[in-house]
């Protein structure tokens, strides 16, 4: 391979790896924050509880470009949700740290 080609391929790989690392989810931190925020009282990761399982949420948002944005809004603005026929406010994540919120959002979307 020529030097130029090597440089191009190398840069692409580096960018991809960097991007992947930036997208990497800290699962244990996400779980801990979810637990602390009381999410697991209504949501299981894979089983049916009160709200949809995170696996189901991930399936619903799969392939959608605005998935992260929508979920971020959902977890920070206490929107109204329907639970058993009645409406109630959805809780928010118990943190103001944007990186931590993003981490949880990505964790949910990757279940």
């Amino acid at each position, binding site marked *: 391979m020529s030097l130029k080609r090597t440089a191009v391929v190398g840069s692409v790989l580096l960018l991809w790896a960097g991007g992947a690392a930036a997208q990497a989810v800290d699962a244990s931190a996400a779980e801990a924050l979810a637990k602390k925020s009381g999410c*697991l009282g209504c949501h*299981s*990761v*894979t*089983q*049916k*509880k*009160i709200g949809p399982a995170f696996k189901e949420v991930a399936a619903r948002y799969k392939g959608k470009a605005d998935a992260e944005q929508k979920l971020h809004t959902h977890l920070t603005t206490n929107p109204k949700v329907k639970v*058993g026929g*009645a409406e*109630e406010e959805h809780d928010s994540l118990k943190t103001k740290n944007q990186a931590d919120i993003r981490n949880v959002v990505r964790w949910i979307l990757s279940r």
Partner: protein
Amino acid sequence: MTIKAWESLRNRCATCARTTLVGGTVVVALLVGGLLMAAGAAGLAGTNTEKFCIGCHEMRENVYAEFKGTIHDTNRSGVRAICSDCHVPREPVPMLIRKMQATFELWGHFVTGVIDTKEKFEAHRYELAKRVWTRMKETDSLECRNCHHADAMSSELQSERARSRHAKGKAEGMTCIDCHFGIAHKEPEGGPGPQELKVGNR
């Protein structure tokens, strides 16, 4: 008592009246029987202690490690549950049946090593959870109700959300485990949860 035994007793105590011999035998039999029962009860009680349960590394390193730090282990009031509080029935007959089933756990521990590594345990996690969930659904979460009495739940002290959830659950014929799972131990990944398991009429 066989005829031979009776005759040998007679020979050893030729001067004793028959009544004394019979009475003595009965008393001894009662004492021995009583001691055996006490020993059996103590043994059974011993198998219900936390120390006994976590004697096996399969329990200590997996489910017990997960249990540590959860609300059933440590909380504001210090009221806690141990393994047998949730996994062993208190009623005598169901308890004895459970203890007999538990001998298969000895087989698994000493002979087959079915869950003796982390990987094997994780592979069986769903199956193990499903057994407990099924049992709880069959018995209307009997062990939960050893401590948590629905009638004694103060609606004033519960949050609005808890009150409405419990009212809805009751109306729909749900049982505790339908929502309150994955509390003491990690949830298994995948597989139908308690609400999706069809057990009896639940």
